[in-house]
């Protein structure tokens, strides 16, 4: 049983608040053994903070001021050591790239048990058991670096399972996953349901587990605002969810949406001979002989796992030297080098494409050479994207959504006519997803051609006008 009694928390009481998260205030929550509870609400509502209080990372790793009691099976988490809590609670984190301590998958599964000094024979038996229950034989004895994000998340779940804790915390585990990988994650959670584990999940994307949960706890600004039981939550309409700032509860495959590729009267953009193969691969990941896309529209690029959506963007953008394709646009042919000046790509990890020390400088280096009134022009662009208040901020200190807007500001400044985005709304809540959708519509009205690789059906409904589904 997990109990939070009158819990309040603020991060970094002695330092300044660097994490950008709200504190919790007067949270009371009791979770029974075997219950599956969903914590949801807009970004910064405190759902991740609750998980960190339960697994002890607060206050042992993330310092701050804790008031009230947090009990796991009757023991106070903040006064026991982290390795003691590790026996009771296992956590799957959001980022598949940064939660592995080992380089090989089998070592990763054994890690938790090795730390507590279980005999080797026991560990082998536990690993074999988890591997067969989860059906992950194919992922064993591989390098973590060769796995897709979906496969990494499976390994993260499996390593929690091998450790055998009764309480399992999921901290936005689907944020980086596409539609199929999310369904696979759902299957693993079902397995835990059958095993009678207590599961507490913090999520924005609620659709894939909405029908599995016993209770939904909806938070805002560090407070619990609604608690809905199994029957209550099923009576909620889509509008009521939207009202609460929640994502859709209906699971819809992006490839089923079926927008047209182009309609009569569209201006066109043609891709010819786009082929690209990874070193050592036997089949090309991108294989397009002739494809017509609508110019001046927002086209969603959808398709199954490994269909080469992101690789296609890199090829269009001219980042893959071995892709020799030509792009025809407004009566001109663009080879790879020309395309680098035509296209701008907003990458999934936006932080890796911001280089300077201030928001203003970031836009300034994107402007074409010899622009007149550089500074005024840059500020004008930042004003359009609601970033004017952050001129002197360090780009790396912005929130995820703000970094994305800054990258788009750089795209605008560079004057490139084709904007490519890779999963722009993964891990965003409803409000931020709608903000991105509105921004894309605004850019479209200025004449930009936009291609979005996405698994987010809601984003497609909100702003996309065309769709290219890679079969």
């Amino acid at each position, binding site marked *: 049983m997990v109990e939070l009694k009158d819990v309040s928390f603020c991060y970094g009481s002695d330092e300044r608040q660097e994490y950008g998260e709200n504190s919790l205030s007067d949270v009371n929550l009791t979770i029974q053994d075997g219950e599956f509870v969903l914590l949801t609400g807009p970004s910064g509502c405190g759902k991740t903070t609750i998980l960190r209080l339960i697994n002890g990372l607060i206050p042992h790793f993330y310092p701050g001021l804790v008031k009230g009691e947090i009990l796991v099976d009757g023991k106070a988490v903040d006064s026991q050591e982290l390795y003691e809590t590790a026996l009771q609670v296992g956590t799957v984190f959001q980022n598949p790239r940064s939660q592995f301590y080992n380089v090989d998958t089998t070592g990763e599964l054994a890690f938790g048990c090795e*730390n507590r*000094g279980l005999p080797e024979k026991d560990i082998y038996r536990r690993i074999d058991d988890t591997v067969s229950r989860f059906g992950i034989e194919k992922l064993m004895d591989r390098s973590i670096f060769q796995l897709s994000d979906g496969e990494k998340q499976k390994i993260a779940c499996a390593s929690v399972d091998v450790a055998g804790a009764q309480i399992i915390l999921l901290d936005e585990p689907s944020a980086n996953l596409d539609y199929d990988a999310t369904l696979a994650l759902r299957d693993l959670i079902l397995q835990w349901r059958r095993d009678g584990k207590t599961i507490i999940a913090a999520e924005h994307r609620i659709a894939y587990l909405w029908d599995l949960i016993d209770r939904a706890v909806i938070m805002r600004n560090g407070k619990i605002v609604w608690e809905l039981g199994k029957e209550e939550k099923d009576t909620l309409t889509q509008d009521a969810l939207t009202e609460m700032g929640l994502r859709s509860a209906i699971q819809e495959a992006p490839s089923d949406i079926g927008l047209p590729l182009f309609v009569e009267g569209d201006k066109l953009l043609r891709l010819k001979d786009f082929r690209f193969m990874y070193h050592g691969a036997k089949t090309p990941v991108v294989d397009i002989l002739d494809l017509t896309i609508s110019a001046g529209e927002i086209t969603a690029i959808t398709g199954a796992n490994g269909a080469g959506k992101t690789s296609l963007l890199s090829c269009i953008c001219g980042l893959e030297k071995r892709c020799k394709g030509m792009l025809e646009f407004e009566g001109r042919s663009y080879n790879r080098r020309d395309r680098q000046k035509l296209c701008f790509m907003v990458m999934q990890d936006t932080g890796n494409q911001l280089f300077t020390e201030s928001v203003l400088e970031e836009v300034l280096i994107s402007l074409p050479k010899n622009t007149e009134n550089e500074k005024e022009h840059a500020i004008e662009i930042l004003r359009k994207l609601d970033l004017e208040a952050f001129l002197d901020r360090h780009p790396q200190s912005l929130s995820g959504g703000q970094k994305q807007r800054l990258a788009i500001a750089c795209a605008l400044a560079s004057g490139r006519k084709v904007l490519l985005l890779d999963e722009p709304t993964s891990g965003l809540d409803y409000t931020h997803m709608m903000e991105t959708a509105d921004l894309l519509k605004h850019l479209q009205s200025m004449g930009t051609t936009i291609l979005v690789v996405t698994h987010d059906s809601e984003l497609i409904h909100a702003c996309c006008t065309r769709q290219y589904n890679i079969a």
Partner: protein
Amino acid sequence: MAYSAEKAQEKRRGFLDPRTKLALVLVLALFVMGGLGGDQLKGIKTILSVLPFLLLLIERQWKRFARGVAMLIVGYGLLLAMPYLPGILNYLALMCGGILTRFVVTIVMGEYLIATTSVSEFISAMERLHMPQAITIPMSVMFRLFPTIGSEWRSIRRAMAMRGIRLGGARAGQVLEYQLVPMMTSTVRIGEELSASALTRGLGAPTGRTNICRIGFRVADVLLLAGCAFAIVVWILELCGVTLW
């Protein structure tokens, strides 16, 4: 057939024990990279220099082998071409050639250590050397972080190319700084998330750790360790003024 972790671990056991690999890195760093020792050690040094390449072949690390050999060829090529080059180029060739021929062998050995040792094997080996956790844990994180830094680096380079920031471009002087800013933030973030995840899985517990990997000295280890010891003995005797041959 059902998966068996025990059989799989037995099968993936490396050719050498991690402790032997560490000893080799150390000895190579001393004698080949550091250039310690006089004429007597010349023969030993040649044998030592060939070892990492041999080991890479034994473990079927074809790519790393090819890369190491290529770097050596470039190094010696530069030294050979050096006398025929004019002025500044002559100096540059000498410098690059010297650095390459001296450092490559040890770097290849280090690469071999990292490529063929799992984190579990490494921790296990360090524990058998009675290293305290305060040294073992940060070093084992490095194992994990090197490849991660590599992939972050590539992703940043691509992002720069996309934004049109290149060497030789208008703002060439700042290119390095531009690379380091996101690099450092992402490394710090990944390091932090990595630690958080490891702590929730009981890393640092005072109970004795177990390791599922198979390590231990076998014939090859004994031979190589004896070789390392021999090199060090010859060197110490030489320092004391004793010449063996």
